[in-house]
C-alpha cells in the first residue's frame, strides 16, 4: 500500500475549491447586488491560488497532495494536483476571470432593485462552475469526481437558460437530459469498479485493476457517459443550441471549459485509473469518433447562417482533436517518442481551444450586441466599426485553423507528427482536412466582417473598448501558446507515475 502524506502547500488545493464555493454561499446569503461584488473580489484571489498551485507543482516537480481529515485512501478522500491539474486550474481561472469581467455589463443589478433574477443566477452559477471544475481537476476518487461532475452540470445547465427565452429552455432541458444519462452511466461504472476492487481511489485502482470483463464493462459505461457530457460526435446534438443560445459570457465558459471537464475525467480514467488497459480497438474507435466530429462539425459550421451557431459547431469539431490522444498517446508498448508528443499536443489543443473559443464567443457577443443580430450574411463591414472584436475573432480563428504562430498550430503540429511517426497517417489526413475546413468557416466570417458594407452601417448599441479588450486578451493568450517549443512539455508529465515511460525528448 502506498502511504500518502499531505504536502506542505497542500492546503492550496482546498482553497481552490473552498473560495468559489464559499462565494456562492455568501452571495446567496447577502443576495442581490452583493453577488457581483463577491464574485469580482474572488476572481483575482482564485486566480492567485491557481497560479500558486502551478508554481508549487513546477517547483516541487511532483504532485501536491491533501488528505481530507488526515485519513489515508481508501478510507479517506485525497485531493491531488499533478501537472495536468495545474495547467487546467490556471486555464480555468483565466477564462472565468475574462467571462466575469465581460459579464459585468450584461448582468448588473438595476439601481432601483435590490435583487434581479438573471444577475444573481449568473454570478452564483459562474462561481459554481468554477468550484465544480476545480473539484474535477483535483479529485482523486472516482466517486468524488462524480459529485464534481454533477455540480458542473447543475451549474452549466441553468447558464444556458439565463435569458429565459423558450428556445434556450428547450436547449437547457435537452442538455440536462443528455447529461443525466451520462452521469447515471458513469455512476453505474463506479458501482461495478467498487464491487470488483473495493476502492475508488485512482492510485489504488491502478494497482488493482486487471484486464478482465468487469473492468471493460465499467470503463465502457463510464466512458459512454462522459462522452455524452463532452458532446463527442454522435452525442453532440445538445451542444450547438445550448452554447449558441446562452449569453456570450456564459457561452464562453461552457464551450471553453465545461465540456473539457468531462474530457479530463475520460483521460483520468484511462490514463491514470486504468493505465494500459484500453484495447487497441477502443482507442481506434475513440479516434474515429473524433475524426468524424472534426469533419462533421466543420462542415456544419460552414453551413451555419448565424455566427454563434457557427462557433458552437466549431466546438464540436475542435473537441474531436482531443480524442486523437487515445490512439496516439497510449498503446500496448509505451516509450515511443510520438506518444509524448501526442500527449503534449492534445493538452495544448485543449488549452488553446479554451482561450480561442472564449475569445470568439465574447467577440461574437459584442458584435451581436452592437448590431442586434448575428446573421452572418448581414454583418458586412462590421469589422470597421468594431475592429478590436473582429481582430479577436480572427486571432482565435487562426488558432482553430492551426496557423503559426498560435497554440492551435503547436497542438496540431505535434499531433500531426505523432500520427505520421506512429504510422497512423489517416489521423493526419483528417487533421489537414479539418484545418482547411476551419479556414473556410473562419474566413467566411472574416470576409464579411472586413468586407464592404452595403449601405450605411447602423449600430444599435455602443460596446465598450474595455470589453473588446477582454476578448482580444483571450485571443492573445491562445496566440502566445504558439511560442511554446515544438516538443513534449515537462510540466504535463509531473506527478503521473504511469507516464514515466513516456520519453521526453
Amino acid at each position, binding site marked *: 500500500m502506498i502511504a500518502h502524506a499531505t504536502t506542505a502547500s497542500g492546503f492550496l488545493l482546498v482553497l481552490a475549491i473552498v473560495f468559489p464555493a464559499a462565494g456562492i454561499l455568501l452571495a446567496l446569503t447577502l443576495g442581490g447586488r452583493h453577488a457581483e461584488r463577491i464574485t469580482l473580489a474572488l476572481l483575482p484571489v482564485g486566480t492567485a491560488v491557481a497560479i500558486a498551485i502551478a508554481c508549487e507543482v513546477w517547483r516541487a516537480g511532483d504532485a501536491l497532495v491533501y488528505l481530507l481529515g488526515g485519513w489515508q485512501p481508501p478510507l479517506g478522500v485525497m485531493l491531488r494536483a499533478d501537472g495536468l491539474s495545474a495547467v487546467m486550474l490556471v486555464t480555468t481561472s483565466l477564462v472565468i476571470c475574462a467571462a466575469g469581467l465581460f459579464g459585468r455589463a450584461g448582468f448588473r443589478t438595476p439601481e432601483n432593485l435590490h435583487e434581479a433574477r438573471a444577475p444573481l443566477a449568473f454570478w452564483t452559477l459562474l462561481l459554481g462552475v468554477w468550484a465544480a471544475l476545480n473539484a474535477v481537476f483535483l479529485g482523486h476518487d472516482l466517486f468524488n469526481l*462524480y459529485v464534481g461532475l454533477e455540480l458542473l452540470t447543475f451549474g452549466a445547465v441553468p447558464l444556458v437558460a439565463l435569458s429565459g427565452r423558450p428556445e434556450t429552455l428547450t436547449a437547457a432541458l435537452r442538455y440536462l437530459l443528455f447529461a443525466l444519462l451520462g*452521469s447515471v452511466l458513469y455512476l*453505474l461504472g463506479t458501482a461495478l469498479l467498487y464491487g470488483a476492487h473495493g476502492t475508488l481511489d485512482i492510485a489504488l485502482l491502478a494497482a488493482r485493476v486487471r484486464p478482465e470483463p468487469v473492468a471493460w464493462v465499467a470503463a465502457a459505461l463510464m466512458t459512454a457517459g462522459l462522452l455524452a457530457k463532452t458532446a463527442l460526435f454522435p452525442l453532440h446534438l445538445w451542444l450547438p443550441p445550448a452554447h449558441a443560445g446562452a449569453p456570450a459570457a456564459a457561452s464562453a465558459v461552457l464551450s471553453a471549459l465545461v465540456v473539457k471537464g468531462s474530457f479530463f475525467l475520460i483521460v483520468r480514467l484511462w490514463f491514470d485509473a486504468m493505465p494500459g488497459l484500453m484495447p487497441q480497438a477502443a482507442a481506434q474507435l475513440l479516434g474515429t469518433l473524433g475524426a468524424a466530429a472534426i469533419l462533421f462539425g466543420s462542415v456544419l459550421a460552414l453551413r451555419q447562417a448565424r455566427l454563434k451557431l457557427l462557433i458552437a459547431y466549431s466546438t464540436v469539431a475542435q473537441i474531436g482533436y482531443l480524442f486523437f490522444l487515445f490512439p496516439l498517446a497510449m498503446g500496448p508498448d509505451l516509450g515511443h517518442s510520438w506518444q509524448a508528443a501526442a500527449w503534449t499536443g492534445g493538452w495544448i489543443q485543449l488549452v488553446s481551444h479554451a482561450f480561442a473559443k472564449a475569445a470568439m464567443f465574447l467577440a461574437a457577443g459584442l458584435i451581436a450586441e452592437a448590431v442586434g443580430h448575428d446573421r452572418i450574411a448581414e454583418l458586412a463591414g462590421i469589422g470597421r466599426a468594431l475592429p478590436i472584436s473582429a481582430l479577436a475573432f480572427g486571432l482565435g480563428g487562426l488558432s482553430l485553423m492551426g496557423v503559426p504562430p498560435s497554440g492551435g498550430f503547436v497542438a496540431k503540429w505535434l499531433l500531426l507528427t505523432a500520427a505520421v511517426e506512429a504510422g497512423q497517417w489517416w489521423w493526419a489526413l483528417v487533421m489537414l482536412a479539418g484545418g482547411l475546413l476551419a479556414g473556410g468557416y473562419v474566413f467566411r466570417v472574416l470576409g464579411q466582417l472586413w468586407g464592404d458594407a452595403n449601405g450605411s452601417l447602423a449600430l444599435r448599441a455602443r460596446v465598450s473598448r474595455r470589453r473588446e479588450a477582454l476578448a482580444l486578451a483571450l485571443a492573445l493568450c491562445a496566440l502566445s501558446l504558439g511560442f511554446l517549443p515544438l516538443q513534449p512539455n515537462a510540466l504535463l508529465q509531473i506527478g503521473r507515475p504511469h507516464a514515466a515511460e513516456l520519453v521526453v525528448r
Partner: protein
Amino acid sequence: MNTAALFGLLGAALVGLGLFGLVVHPNPLRKILAFNLLGGGVFLVFGAVARRGAAAGMGGDPVPQALVITGLVVAFSATALAVSLLLRLFQETGRTTLRDEDGGKP
C-alpha cells in the same frame, strides 16, 4: 441464487428498463421518470455490491451505502432541476416537448 445476486439482477433489469425509456420516449417527462428508474437500478446494484462486500458478521459494507445516499441527493436535485425547467417551458410555450420549431431564431 443468493439474495445479493437476486438484487443485482433486479438492479440490472431496472437499468435496462430505464435506459430503454430514456432512449425511446420523446416526451421529456417520461425521460425524467425513466432516468429515475435507471438511477434506482444503479442504487440497487450498489446495495448488492455492499452486501457482497460485507465483512464477516456485518450486514453490509458501509461505503457503498454512503455512496448511495450521496447519489440519491444528486439524483433528487437533478430531477428537481429537470422538472422545474420543464414547468418553465410549459408556462412559456404551453408545450412539454423538445420540438425545435423555431429553428434557433434569436
